């Protein structure tokens, strides 16, 4: 039994960087009727669920090929909660790019910032992201990072395999499964629900408590140009937000016993021309 703190870090196997985002827990979202904005205060947070699948994918690859799993995020210091959770799940270390100047970033400066952070981390074999976030659902950041770093990309993967220096991602596309193969280093985005994310374990929680595993970087630590980050660096803005008007529906609800209710329903649907007979 050896003790991790006395061993020097060894670079073998794959170095995988997983980009994660902390998001409000989906079911807890509600819109403030007065300000018409999302009520974010006091809402519990979680690691964006597709990112959890990406993390699990990374852990499985590490189990198979050896190496390390690093976690990267961009956001306020509150995101430490998710980074610590990722470490408690099994990640080796975490990095958070946090800076007021990054506030209001759309996907262009976000992809740029994360790319610069990845540069700073140094050598890597794979960059994994969840396919999209539950709060913004653009799916742009993974491919955006690939564009910035000029790397091969494979999106919407339900499976990821490493064969020597090549990576294969099985993409779930509309008409089937397409397996792409490309050389590492590469960027892959991982499908929501493609695996079962593991829970934090005792060893992981101990490592978090020991501390020193989360590094914070500011915009200047990465040498980012203020004109290209945050609100200033975002080509898009949210001009306004409307509450959705659902179409008014007639709403005839039948509460009779099944035989009667069904015949009433079918009669109505026939009148509407929905049923062919």
């Amino acid at each position, binding site marked *: 039994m050896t003790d991790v703190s006395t061993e020097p870090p060894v670079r073998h196997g794959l170095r995988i960087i997983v980009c994660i985002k902390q998001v409000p827990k*989906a079911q807890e*979202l*509600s819109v403030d009727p007065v300000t*018409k904005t999302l009520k974010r205060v006091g809402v519990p947070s979680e690691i964006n669920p597709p990112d959890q699948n990406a993390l699990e994918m990374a852990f499985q690859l590490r189990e198979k090929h050896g190496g390390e799993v690093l976690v990267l995020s961009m956001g306020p210091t509150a995101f430490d909660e998710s980074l610590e959770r990722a470490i408690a799940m099994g990640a080796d270390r975490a990095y958070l790019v946090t800076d007021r100047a990054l506030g209001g970033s759309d*996907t*262009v400066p976000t*992809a*740029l910032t994360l790319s610069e952070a990845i540069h700073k981390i140094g050598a890597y074999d794979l960059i994994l992201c969840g396919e999209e976030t539950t709060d*913004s*659902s*653009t799916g*742009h*950041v*993974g*491919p*955006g990072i*690939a*564009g910035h770093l000029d790397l*091969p*990309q494979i*999106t*919407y993967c339900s499976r990821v395999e490493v064969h020597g220096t090549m990576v294969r991602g099985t993409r*779930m*596309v*509309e*008409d*089937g499964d*397409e*397996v*792409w193969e*490309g050389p590492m280093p590469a960027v892959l985005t991982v*499908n929501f629900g493609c695996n079962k994310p593991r829970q934090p374990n005792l060893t992981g929680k101990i490592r978090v408590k020991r501390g020193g595993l989360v590094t914070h970087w500011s915009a200047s630590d990465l040498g980012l140009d203020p004109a290209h980050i945050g609100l200033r660096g*975002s*080509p*898009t*803005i*949210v*001009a306004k*937000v*409307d*509450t*959705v008007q*659902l*179409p008014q*529906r*007639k*709403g005839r*609800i*039948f*509460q009779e*016993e099944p*035989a009667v*209710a*069904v015949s009433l*329903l*079918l009669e109505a*649907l026939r009148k509407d021309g929905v*049923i*062919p*007979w």
Partner: protein
Amino acid sequence: MVTGEAAAPAKPPPSGVWVFLEARRGALRDVSIQLIGEGRRIADKKKAILSGVLPGWEVEHLAREAVEYGVDDVFLVEDPRLETYLSRPYTKVLATLIRKYRPEIVLFGASKNGRDLGGRLHATIETGLAADCVRFDVTAEGYLDMIRPAFGGKSLAHIHCEKHRPQMASARVNVFQRPARDPTRTGRIVREKVDLVDPDMDTRIFEFIESQRRETRKIDEAKVIIAGGFGLGNPKNFGMLEELAELLGGAVGSSRKPVDSGWVPKALQVGQTGKTVRPDVYVAIGISGAVQHLAGMQESAKIVAINIDPKAAIFEVADYGIVGDLFEVVPELIRQLRALRDQAAAPGLPAAARPGSPAAG
């Protein structure tokens, strides 16, 4: 570089509305066609030209088809290396053409490949991209108003890209109406060449396994969807829905929980994290009606709900509903529909002699 475009005084301002035409195995994707209709509407509002961009191999006929659907011209880029979508070469094609022709607006269908492409492209040329839009408008200033669902479908966000060009957006699948096809329509086909070298072909398609399940493709285009929720209790009960779907010539769908529980494949999932559908009839069975599910089906022409809980949220958006035990209602529904169908097949015959009845043999 396109950033700071508007500041350069010598060049004319960017103009033109482009639609990315995605060719998939010899045909134009539905969403590309839907976008031509919407693109036409925006171009007309802006009094601009609507162009299609079509990378591919041996797809000239699709370019003509696009013109018949409403584009004024098509930038056709043919190369055997473009036969099937791959990220880098397609991004290079789009980036090259955008830099050369400087469109004001570029629209993509939010298919998997459309989003893959848009994501890489927008970072490469540094411009704004609004994802998964369900509506477009043109503001008084002439910007594109890109409207997309936010906050789990409870709200609609209006996204603007004021300074960067082109303004780019991806459009959600099956939300926009397919335009009429006019075979008499004419337009230009502009053949463009983009040099694709080996480093551009960093990935290759190793294997393609076509989906076996018919429903996987059907749900996107089905006119009738019979969707099941957690109330079904176990995967076997989806068999009932398949029977019902068969009777009505529809497809089976699902809310999120049965997919998460592994009862049905994700391809059947309707909702915010699944598919958006707009069938003529959507029957929600044992589905409570969480906002995330509604986001995927609330624009169905007719919604029918079957649920044991009279207070279930689904009843609020239903045109018709039955409050009752689905294990009684659904078999009854199947029974009565069969009777109706048999009656229609052989009217005037006594029940026993009708096709499908046991006595008829």
